[in-house]
């Protein structure tokens, strides 16, 4: 079921309980048509306009193709920002636009079998779905497709006839998503032909790019949600994430700009993603600072961050009508730790706890249940002793292992601000007994 834009569904800003719940849906990234009404530019309080810089780098790249690797915490707004980036790149600016192929990994891949051959096929299928081109009319398309069909044929499956039809590529897309055995078999069978497949894909993209009208300079692939591929072991016992992102995807040397998302955990692994991809830029989308940086003494609220989040929230909810006082709004924003999704969750759950206007106590009541969740989820965690030091200094103590760092950031126990500049413990975690009673690490 596709959604209508939020502003068409509701009268915004929301005032009634059901409108508030709908307007504060943490599961809903902003669609391009919702950007004008609901998007709030948070770049000034997120360490600068990182997505804008990606656009500038792509636009500024002449005679080379940009590699951009994007990550961030769950709920930081990756998908929203990438959809916005795609829309911006499609717009002609100073006479230059781009042909953006936006690829949601979920629509093309099976989570349990994502490797380079499947990603190559996903690019091919996504390209074939662009109305601008008919790949069958290209020089390279039929050759590549023939090669793929032969590999699939070697699996002994009765697919040849179906794949030969005009909807063969669509069928392949569905099969790769739902038929794990086929996807796995294809990867194994394609291993001996990977160089050939890569070259043919390169040629095909170069060929279609050559057909672009003069005002469209290049093809840009935005591959979103790759960061959600579950970590597992490869057949050889290596980390799938490190194998795919560190060894296989850098081989994807296609004549197009590539913007890929990746798991934030790889920021803290030893593989050095930036070096694996030639000249790749890594971008981590941070949270909005709601507390002063560690250097500020005494540390209080980061007023600019709180004001930005208030503007964001005010686009969705009629703050004056819904909240009893300003302190209640500020508390909700403060407790979110600057995670937009947590702002929406806290405010969206207020109607379940009582009637309007929502006072400070009601906000704290909602937060208390979220704190209880953290309380139970954090029990016995080996990193609890480090949290006080992180909250005090904004840095990970030397004793923090990469694995703990990964867990702390992935699970939003510790939040990152200004991309690695400093860290803080989530305010909801700070309110737990687990945090308060944690023995400080030496």
């Amino acid at each position, binding site marked *: 079921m596709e959604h209508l834009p939020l502003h068409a569904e509701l009268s915004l800003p929301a005032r009634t309980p059901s409108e508030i*719940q709908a307007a504060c849906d*943490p*599961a809903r990234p902003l669609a391009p048509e919702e950007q004008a009404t609901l998007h709030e530019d948070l770049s000034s309080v997120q360490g600068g306009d990182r997505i804008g810089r990606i656009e500038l780098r792509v636009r500024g790249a002449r005679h080379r193709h940009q590699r951009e690797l994007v990550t961030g*915490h769950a709920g930081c707004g990756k998908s929203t920002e990438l959809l916005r980036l795609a829309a911006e790149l499609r717009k002609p600016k100073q006479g230059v636009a781009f042909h953006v192929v936006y690829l949601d990994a979920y629509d093309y891949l099976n*989570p*349990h079998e994502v490797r380079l051959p499947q990603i190559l096929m996903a690019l091919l299928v996504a390209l074939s779905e662009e109305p601008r081109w008919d790949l069958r009319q290209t020089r390279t398309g039929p050759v590549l497709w023939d090669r793929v069909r032969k590999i699939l044929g070697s699996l002994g499956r009765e697919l040849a006839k179906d794949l030969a039809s005009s909807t063969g590529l669509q069928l392949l897309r569905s099969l790769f998503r739902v038929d794990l055995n086929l996807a796995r078999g294809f990867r194994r069978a394609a291993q001996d032909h990977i160089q050939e497949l890569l070259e043919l894909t390169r040629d095909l993209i170069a060929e279609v790019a050559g057909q672009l009208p003069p005002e469209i300079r290049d093809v840009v692939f935005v591959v979103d949600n790759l960061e*959600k*591929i579950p970590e597992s072991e490869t057949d050889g016992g290596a980390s799938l994430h490190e194998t795919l992102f560190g060894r296989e995807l850098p081989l994807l040397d296609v004549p197009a700009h590539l913007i890929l998302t990746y798991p934030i955990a790889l920021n803290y692994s030893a593989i050095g993603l930036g070096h694996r991809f030639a000249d790749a830029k890594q971008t981590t989308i941070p949270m909005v600072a709601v507390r002063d940086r560690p250097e500020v003494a005494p540390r209080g609220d980061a007023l600019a961050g709180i004001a930005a989040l208030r503007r964001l929230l005010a686009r969705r909810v009629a703050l004056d009508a819904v909240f009893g006082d300003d302190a209640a709004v500020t508390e909700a924003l403060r407790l979110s730790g600057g995670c937009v999704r947590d702002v929406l969750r806290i405010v969206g759950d207020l109607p*379940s706890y009582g009637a309007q206007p929502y006072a400070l106590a009601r906000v704290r009541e909602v937060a208390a249940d979220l704190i209880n*969740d953290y309380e139970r989820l954090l029990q016995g965690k080996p990193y609890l002793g480090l949290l006080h030091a992180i909250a005090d200094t904004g840095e990970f103590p030397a004793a923090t292992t990469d694995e703990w760092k990964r867990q702390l950031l992935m699970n939003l126990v510790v939040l990152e601000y200004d991309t690695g500049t400093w860290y803080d413990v989530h305010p909801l975690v700070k309110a737990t007994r687990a945090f308060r009673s944690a023995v400080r690490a030496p």
Partner: protein
Amino acid sequence: MIRGALSGITDLGPQNDERLRRLRTALAIGGGFRLIIVEAEPGPIRREVVRRIASWAGRGEIGALAPVSLDADASLAEQLAVGSGVIVTGIAPPDPGEPPARDWIAELNWSRDALPRAVPGPLILVVSQALHQALFERAPDLYSWRRHTTHVAVVSPRIAAPLASPGDSYWLAERDRIRRGLGEVPRWDRDGYPHEHFIQAQARLDLIEVLLQLGDRSSVSQYKREVPGAMDPVLDDTSWRDGNRMAMAVLAQDKLVTVQRALLDRDHAAAAYWLPSAAEWYALGTHDREDLESDELLLARGRLHALTGAWDAATAELERVQADRYAPLTHALAREALCQVAFARGDLPLARRRVADLVEVLRPRRDTWGPAIAIRLAEAVVEMYPEPIAALLDAAPQDAEAESCRTRAITTRCLRARRAWLLDLPELARAELATARSWIRAEDPAEIRALLAACEAGVALATGGGATAEITDSLDRACRLYRPGAPGHAAVAGIALGQLWTERARPDLAVAAYRRAAEDARAAGDVALAGDAELGELGTAIEDGSDEDVTHGRLRALLDQLACAGRIQSEGAARAQLGRSLLRRGLRDAAVAELSRARACFAASADAEGEAQVAKLLDATG
């Protein structure tokens, strides 16, 4: 016990009722896709939670909510796309001991963006605390989408009561060994040397310790009476009294036995009264605070706090009990009590860690008392939390090849069967029970035979097999066999028997079973259980029309107790029953009053089904 096989768990407690009401409000306010996480442990608690949530479907502002138990052979999208909101269970394998057929967490996380398209209403994931943790750790993207989380953890003080191992082979052998030894120690006379009296008294205290482990109250009392007599000459001899701290320690132990006996009877007032006296004697007899005697005091204090529901105080005392190679049992009992406290307060992550800790402590004692502790803790917990007891049962004997392990292996298999039926695994339950049955002998201790009989009835009820006569025979046998040594268990089996007779339209037999169960519960010191039995008796009498005014008076008194205890669901059911009876007699006003209160109870416990049934009765009153 097998009570869950018939009635399940109905009362979740006022806090959980409030959480469910809040969830109901959240579902009623919003529309469209929403990810809701409901944390409820597999077994009876989850069944009740899912029942209540399902009862909201199609009522008020809440749309349809289809129950979906995930099937490993079908695609996730197909299973969830049923055109309405869904209540999803089965995310973990049915038997948590089995490896999962599908990694549902990874699939849900991956297909997150497609979920709003597939589910046009609430997506309610019903998970255990362990699975909730896994969602948090392994699916941070999906987890960050949650709109509302509800955590249902039932506080159950009964789990925190001191445990015993009636019929355990090791403790029975120890009892017999020490008893034989008593005969060899010369009986004291008042002119004997003090150290002989000391040995006499110590031997009795050793025996009492074993009897406490067996839960043999009457024998404890018998030997307890002999200890002070043995020590009198010691105390009369000034050179001993002043110089021998060991003698003081023996007397302290004697006082402590009084406390332990009171704790076993759940008589916290008596335990609290005698504990300072024991502490005074310890102070006289102890060289320093690190002595093992102080650990026994800590254990007693911890258990007393646990019995009164002072969980934090109990934990603080029990955690101070040190691992001591001279008193390993005290240390193990403290670890056991810490497990009980964690389960009793519904803190499952902590309980799992405590169990792992206990299993390690018991491992070196697997040839002596270790398995007895693992088994009795599993038995105390299984009805409420069948899933996490697997680790305890794994620490107990599994097969009966060695005769020394046979009765324990039977107990283990019976508990595995009980766990299986509570987790809706009837085939496994039948298989475990068949194994246990093949090992039992007529001369085995009554408690072991009682457990097997109770489990036979439970499996038959849960799987729908067996004739009524067979099931009632099993329950009746369980009651009789349990009664002398484990009256609390007899009461639970008796309540199940009463429920069964009520269901089979034999109110006369049901009333008799309930009455006997109430007596057994009182003998075990379990006032709440006695109240349950009495409630069953009165309810049956009212249903049958054999009630009198005095019945109504007793029932109203019990209803007040239920209200005070926050057992709203049980109160609602009993009031509805009373209302129906009053209606039948034409006492319209009284009936309306009771039914209205019943409806309020069901509304407060977010049980829309109960509310609707009572509303129908109220409508009929005009």
